[in-house]
């Protein structure tokens, strides 16, 4: 008898009799004997539940509990207890893709609400039921642009777009001979250089992809980028890794963006060593039939009662097979539920207040570091993440992590050789005043002596 298996020996005997088989082994007779002989699993026996818990508690404890001021694509935020309570409801957690809508209205209505939240937040017309993560959503947006504007060749990625996102785009298009990926520089403000776009974007431009905020925490000038790209007939894709920013900043929909994507982890999900999160994906009504991913729509039953179904399935691979809009066949269902519950809990006022608090805390921290002699690298407008110049940054970062239990952001040299003396710092509502004061103190100690002052 093994864990989770209800079969008694009486059950097995009765079932084999009904089947007319002498043994369970006989049910595998169609598998060649040679394969069966080689397949014995040389793996340990199972653990009882208490042992299993202790084993994982010990593993989790080995991860240390440093104070972390890193964002870089995953943002620590406080989560109302209601969110995880709803996620743990087995009725949501253990259902699958709502193929039978009559008994899946909970999942379907929640997705419809999710799509509404994403559309409202981004200022776009319509959103899908979510993608795997922000990076693959970005790649899917590029592929969508290729369906909308076939024959156009050049994908311009801002170099200030998160490096993982740029790498995933490159991975997804590597087999497509009709696409080339090129990069756009940033300017002194840390913003994608709109002048470079105007100079470089030609008639073969498929799309421009820029961060909002970008990897430096700085808001790109989406309207200027859109103006330059639309003049040559291409599309603008905005990428938001920290969607909390959209509560206070002009949304992509108001900046003439054609496709707005992002990572939704900030809204109710733990950072969980990088996943699961979810990709946000929104676009304009006119482009909806080219949009990838699951979509839920409203309809009625025979008695006129409102209900929700998966819709626009003719875009999908079970019907279109190799001509589908995408190979994605699910969404990040439970993660989109987390976002929906989280945004419902905070609502209009809560979200605005939280965004204002993040914005203020990060700016206050940046100002204190500047007074301590650690200047910001970029002059552009930022939200809750910013770049400071710290001499010998990688060594300082490593030392603080080892000796002080403090992770001082992300050393940017790992992604940008020209920024090897810079740290990307993130401050959210999870950081206490004493933690922030300590961050300022320890970094100030690393500041250039001539400029450091109390």
């Amino acid at each position: 008898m093994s864990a989770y298996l209800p079969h008694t020996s009486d059950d097995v005997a009765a079932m084999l009799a009904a089947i007319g088989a002498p043994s369970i082994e006989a049910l595998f007779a169609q598998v060649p004997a040679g394969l069966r002989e080689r397949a014995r699993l040389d793996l340990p026996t199972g653990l009882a539940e208490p042992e299993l818990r202790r084993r994982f508690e010990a593993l989790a404890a080995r991860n240390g509990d440093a104070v972390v001021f890193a964002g870089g694509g995953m943002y620590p935020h406080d989560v109302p207890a209601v969110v995880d309570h709803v996620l743990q409801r087995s009725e949501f957690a253990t259902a699958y893709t709502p193929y039978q809508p009559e008994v899946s209205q909970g999942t379907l209505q929640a997705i419809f609400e999710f799509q509404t939240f994403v559309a409202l937040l981004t200022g776009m017309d319509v959103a899908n039921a979510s993608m795997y993560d922000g990076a693959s959503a970005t790649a899917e947006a590029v592929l969508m642009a290729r369906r909308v504007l076939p024959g156009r060749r050049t994908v311009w990625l801002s170099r200030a777009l998160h490096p993982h996102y740029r790498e995933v785009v490159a991975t997804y298009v590597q087999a497509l001979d009709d696409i080339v990926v090129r990069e756009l520089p940033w300017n002194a403000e840390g913003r994608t250089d709109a002048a470079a776009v105007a100079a470089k974007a030609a008639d073969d431009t498929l799309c421009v992809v820029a961060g909002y905020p970008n990897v430096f925490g700085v808001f790109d000038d989406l309207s200027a980028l859109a103006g330059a790209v639309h003049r040559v007939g291409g599309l603008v894709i905005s990428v938001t890794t920290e969607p909390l920013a959209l509560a206070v900043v002009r949304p992509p929909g108001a900046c003439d963006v054609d496709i707005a994507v992002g990572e939704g982890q900030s809204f109710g999900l733990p950072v969980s060593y990088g996943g699961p999160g979810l990709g946000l994906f929104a676009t304009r009504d006119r482009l909806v039939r080219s949009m990838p991913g699951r979509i839920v729509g409203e309809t009625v039953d025979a008695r006129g009662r409102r209900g929700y179904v998966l819709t626009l399935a003719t875009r999908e691979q079970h019907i279109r097979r190799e001509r589908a809009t995408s190979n994605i066949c699910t969404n990040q269902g439970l993660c989109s539920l987390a976002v929906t519950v989280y945004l419902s809990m905070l609502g209009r006022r809560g979200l605005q207040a939280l965004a204002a608090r993040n914005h203020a805390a990060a700016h206050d921290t940046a100002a204190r570091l500047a007074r301590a002699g650690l200047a910001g690298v970029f002059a552009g407008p930022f939200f809750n993440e910013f770049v400071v110049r710290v001499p010998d940054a990688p060594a300082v970062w490593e030392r603080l992590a080892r000796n002080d239990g403090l992770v001082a952001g992300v050393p940017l040299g790992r992604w940008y050789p020209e920024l090897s003396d810079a740290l990307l710092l993130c401050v959210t509502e999870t950081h206490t005043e004493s933690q922030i004061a300590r961050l300022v103190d320890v970094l100030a100690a690393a500041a250039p002596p001539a400029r450091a002052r109390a």
Partner: protein
Amino acid sequence: MHDEPLIFERGSRGRTGWDVPASTETVALPAELRRDDDLAGFPEVGELEVLRHFLRLSQWNYSAATGMYPLGSCTMKYNPIVNEAIARLPGFARLHPLVPDHLAQGALAVVAELEDWLKAVSGLDAVCLQPAAGAQGELLGMLLVRAYHRDRGAKRTRVLIPASAHGTNPASSALCGYTVTELPISERGTLEPERVAEAMDDSVAALMVTNPNTLGLFETEIERVAALVHERGGLVYMDGANMNALMGVARPGDMGVDVMQFNLHKTFSTPHGGGGPGAGPVAVRGMLADYLPVPRLVRGPDGLRWDEQPGKSVGRVRSFYGNFGILVRALAYMLRLGGPGLRDVTRYAVLNAAYVRAQLVGDFHLPYDAPSMHECVFSDRLQQSSGVQTMDIAKRLLDYGFYAPTIYFPLVVKGAMMIEPTETESRETLDEFVAAMRAIAREAREDPARVRAAPHTTRVGRLDETRAARRPVLRWRPPAQAPGRTKEN
């Protein structure tokens, strides 16, 4: 059953479920960057209102925890509750992905151990845990195939895919620039070496095969088929969606498979979550290992660390390291069962499917009668004279308190009903399911109108999908916005 409005239709101006302390000072964005719509449309609701709203919605869902969910090819087994507690340990849940490796040794140990277990189950040499889902694993697998051939200067343009394949297989191949050649299957329902040999030439990059296939049949000729593909320089990709039928019974590596994806949300019990998150790790033979995504986990003098050196890698398929929270759950499941337990999972999964199949033959048409593994496929042929179709049978099952099988798939069976009970259902539950299916077969003869009008007991009846697609309403709009369209149109 209450009606439950949209969350946007609830609440009152000024209410919130989460009071955020006011900032001592506020910082202003430049005027041209400020959001000026005051988040119009966002709800303003209280905590209890939110809780009730979502608990009511939860009650409108059928789920694997509340009843048997025989959705073929999806392996809707029990999702152990303890794994939820384990994945939520603060040491995992609050671990930021960009901390130095020495502060993440526990997480890296989880990754290393899961890689080892998946190698053992697959009989392959290297594993990448990055893909977020089965379809992303497929895409990665085919990119590895492409990189392998390119490195050898081979120009290969085609992928062979049996007619019984998952729809994502051709879609993933197309994304890798390949054209798809569909292979017919035999009368028995499996691949024939002769058909593979005919289709095979130097332009074929890979054969993409699901084993057991979507009819629930083991591909008995898989070793010969793989040898034929290898002889002409091709690779064999296996869709591992049905690994629940193979653990401890047959290893893909021994069959001649070069690359495959696992679906941890199927075989290894992580919750399906209404559509995700899942995880689709890829396992490969040694000659493909160099092409796997970065970063790769390596063992160094100071412990485990991530190696970011790109080398010959095809690149990343997602940010960071994959759906880590799902990986934790899957490893917990494997350690709880152990090697012998995983083998038992497969044994009882096949026993349960055979038991259901044996009792439904006669009431429903079995288009392929070769012995099946963890699932079985029936059709509606015996019900056709009464005008009852697969869709009606599926809807009527909802009235009997069961979820429906996968229907109208695989495409090679007209009116298919693909039933996968999984190993975690007891004999009594299977008996109840069989009784329900037989009752529906009887109703189809005696009162077909009742079956055709099903479901009768659900919160809503059959929904008008044509209307949903013709006049898409894909979001709620604030009342002022509702009549018109937005200005961009």
